[in-house]
């Protein structure tokens, strides 16, 4: 005989705590303000009828056809809510609330009460996602007590029935059991608080979407706003405050802005108030306290009844000059926001005197006043950017450099196929630049460029011979320029002729090959070594303007490097060989 499931159907009335459980769970959903009136009415009617006929149900309450028809009605209603454009969680809230009512109506013998508890739990979970109300936590605690008692009662009852000892059931329900259940609930709440603190807060945001949604955030007032956590924002219809103008002209609808929270810092994800600490406003707000430098100058007096809001903020229009109300401890933040500390969950009535005359944009533009001495640097400082933004900018800059190089290479190759007089014009332009003391990028070509450019041209699928001939022509032109003066030639060669053109072609073409970054780094290192070696060999050669004997060790080292590059396939083989040959014969340069 297996005991792995509830086998005995319990036909007796549910314990009264089941109704308490349902009431609490439905109340958690009701305080969200998201349930349509028909859903609330249906649930309320089911609740009342089932409680009224708890011990003597109507015949239709056990009719499966009718119950199934009601279930279909609930499904239709839920679908209708979803089709109205409501978030999926709101539609599910309707489903859970009305199904819970149907579950209460259903008077057929049941094998378990867990379905009732699970539905109630589902309602609580949905409510947790839909509300920021301060009433949620007390309702959750009440839910724990009701759920514990309901489950205990049902477990004992079903166990006794399964064992055929129905007569013993009343013997088990003693005040001692109630005390045990009460203590267990209290322990569960305490334990939950500990676990709540201890649980690591992670936010994966794995599943998002219009239907599934991330967190469904509500508009409201809290100490911080996390933009990254928002999926969709639903409007919170609960009343925040009631305002009555006692003195002065009531503001028009376009100008009716009551200021409460003003976030001044955004760290890339969260808006918050810095510094977060608040200062106590001296004096008793209950007796009336003046604010600002000129408390007697005001043009508007309003009486405001503020409902409980999470941040405990006090709203007002314009610049507050005085406040009086049921505020035990009045605090002010760095942005001038007023708070009733520790009264976030209370309704507060206060009268605030304000000066509405606010400087317009021109006044603010002309205002050259110095920032306040205390905390003024905060007003002038630019908001710090998150490290992620810095990284993104760096990546963008690197990308731009890569693009610039690629574009330069692009410009170089089509030029080879253009008539030579264009190069001459360029040369003239280069001369003009040189005359103005600016660097001359186009003139820095040599035979090395020719050889390496040959490989680059081949890699791009262009006729290598054409490119080589034209480059050679330009190289001769360049060589003539070099011979014009030792100093000028040394300066140009020593600057970076090879970096600009020659060895750049050895690098893998970023647009054509998706080489791993490691290979690119290796090639870059080889490129740098080649360039240093070339300087060491070529510059003295040019300085002397006489043939040089080849540097055998440098040749061997370069040959190794280029072979490695050939193995890696980072350059066209013929181009690389030409490069190798060039390095092996530096004497020909002079």
């Amino acid at each position, binding site marked *: 005989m297996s005991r792995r499931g509830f086998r005995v159907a319990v036909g007796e009335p549910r314990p009264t705590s089941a109704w308490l459980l349902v009431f609490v769970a439905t109340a958690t959903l009701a305080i969200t303000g998201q349930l349509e009136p028909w859903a609330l009415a249906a649930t309320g009617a089911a609740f009342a009828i089932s409680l009224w006929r708890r011990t003597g149900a109507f015949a239709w309450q056990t009719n499966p056809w009718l119950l199934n028809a009601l279930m279909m009605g609930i499904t239709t209603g839920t679908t209708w809510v979803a089709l109205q454009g409501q978030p999926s969680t709101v539609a599910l809230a309707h489903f859970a609330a009305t199904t819970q009512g149907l579950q209460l109506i259903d008077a057929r013998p049941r094998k378990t009460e867990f379905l009732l508890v699970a539905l109630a739990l589902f309602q609580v979970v949905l409510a947790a996602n839909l509300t920021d109300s301060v009433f949620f936590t007390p309702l959750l605690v009440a839910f724990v007590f009701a759920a514990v008692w309901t489950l205990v009662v049902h477990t004992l009852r079903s166990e006794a029935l399964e*064992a055929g*000892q129905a007569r013993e059931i009343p013997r088990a329900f003693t005040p001692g059991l109630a005390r045990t259940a009460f203590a267990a609930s209290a322990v*569960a709440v305490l334990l*939950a608080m500990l676990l709540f603190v201890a649980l690591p807060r*992670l936010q994966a945001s*794995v599943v998002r979407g219009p239907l599934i949604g991330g967190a469904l955030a509500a508009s409201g007032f809290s100490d911080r706003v996390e933009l990254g956590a928002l999926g969709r924002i639903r409007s919170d219809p609960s009343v925040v405050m009631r305002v009555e103008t006692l003195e002065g002209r009531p503001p028009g609808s376009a100008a009716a802005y009551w200021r409460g929270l003003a976030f001044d810092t955004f760290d890339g994800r969260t808006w918050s108030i810095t510094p977060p600490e608040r200062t106590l406003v001296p004096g008793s707000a209950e007796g009336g306290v003046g604010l600002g430098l000129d408390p007697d100058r005001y043009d508007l007096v309003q009486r405001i009844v503020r409902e409980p809001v999470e941040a405990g903020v006090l709203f007002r229009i314009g610049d507050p000059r005085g406040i009086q109300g049921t505020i035990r401890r009045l605090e002010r933040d760095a942005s001038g926001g007023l708070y009733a500390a520790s009264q976030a969950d209370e309704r507060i009535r206060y009268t605030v005197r304000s000066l509405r005359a606010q400087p317009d944009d021109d006044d603010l533009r002309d205002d050259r006043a110095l920032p306040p001495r205390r905390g003024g640097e905060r007003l002038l400082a630019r908001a710090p950017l998150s490290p992620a933004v810095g990284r993104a900018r760096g990546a963008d800059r690197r990308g731009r450099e890569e693009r610039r190089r690629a574009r330069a290479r692009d410009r170089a190759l089509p030029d080879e196929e253009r008539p030579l007089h264009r190069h001459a014009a360029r040369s003239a332009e280069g001369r003009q630049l040189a005359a103005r003391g600016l660097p001359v990028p186009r003139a820095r070509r040599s035979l090395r460029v020719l050889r390496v450019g040959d490989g680059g041209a081949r890699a791009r699928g262009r006729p290598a011979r054409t490119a080589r001939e034209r480059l050679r022509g330009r190289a001769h032109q360049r060589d003539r320029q070099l011979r014009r003066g030792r100093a000028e030639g040394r300066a140009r060669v020593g600057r970076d002729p090879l970096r600009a053109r020659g060895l750049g072609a050895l690098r893998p073409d970023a647009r054509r090959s998706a080489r791993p970054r490691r290979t690119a780094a290796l090639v870059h290192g080889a490129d740098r070594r080649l360039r240093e070696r070339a300087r060491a060999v070529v510059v003295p050669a040019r300085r002397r303007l006489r043939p040089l004997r080849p540097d055998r060790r440098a040749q061997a080292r370069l040959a190794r490097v280029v072979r490695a590059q050939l193995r890696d396939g980072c350059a066209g083989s013929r181009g690389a060989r030409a490069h190798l040959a060039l390095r092996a014969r530096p004497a020909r340069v002079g």
Partner: protein
Amino acid sequence: MRRWLRPPRRLSPTRAGWCFFALIFGVGFAALNTGNNLLYLVLSLMLAFLVLSGVLSESALRAIEVRRRVPRELYAERDAWVGIEIYNRQRRVVAYALVVEDRWIDVEGSERAAGRCFALRIAPEGHEQRSYKLRPERRGELAFAGFVVSTRFPFGLFSKSRAFEAPEHALVYPAVDAVPIPRNFGGARESGETVRGPRGAGSEVGGVREFARGDTPRRIAWRASLRSRSLWVRETESEHQGEVEVRLRTAGRPADSGFERDVRGSASEVFALLERGLRVGLRTDRESLAPDAGARQRARLLGYLARVAPDLR
């Protein structure tokens, strides 16, 4: 070794428990996905529920003791009631919804549930008596292994169980059928043969003796018992006080259903003849048990028949 390797408690989720686990994972995932503090709060409460369930079920099982009361005579294929006494040794905590499963070892050597009983509430330092119906399938030794006490208290999410070792052996007599004893039967009888023996039934009072295990309460001599402050029973004897010897052939027989049938028949005759008040003996090819009367003789003869095996020589 097996005893040492056995976990002190076993926990198996019910269907509702699996649903609860699924809910926990669902809420945990939602909390992780959204970072919503209230969802974390609900998740914490659900985890606290789990912990609480474990603590309360442990309190129900912690100081429980179980004892078994096996009936004096167990017959194969006949119902008997095995008594179970459940003690709660805790001073303050009530034990709820305890299911005690008595386990015995079958012929193949594996443990099986012999029966089960339930106690809804056991008060602190109190005890409850329950019983279950046992119907042994065959004659011979019956080995009880121990108890498994389980509870689904408090929420019905898990069934937590605790094993107790309580080895005990009981002897199951062969199945006994009603045997019509003819008024004129012979003094010796072999199974399947004609009965010969003294006539008459045991209705004459032959004296009193001390109460022995198996004696029927109807024969208690209350006056003598009150005088001596111990139980005495009236001994009856047949008008003719004849002796009957039941013979059972055991030599050269296989241990098959035929042999079992003869054992059953012998036991039935022994039982019926002793009930008649005759002095009954038993002779097999190997042993001979002297004739005697009364409950003690019945236990002796039926006990022998419970263990008897064919003599293969």
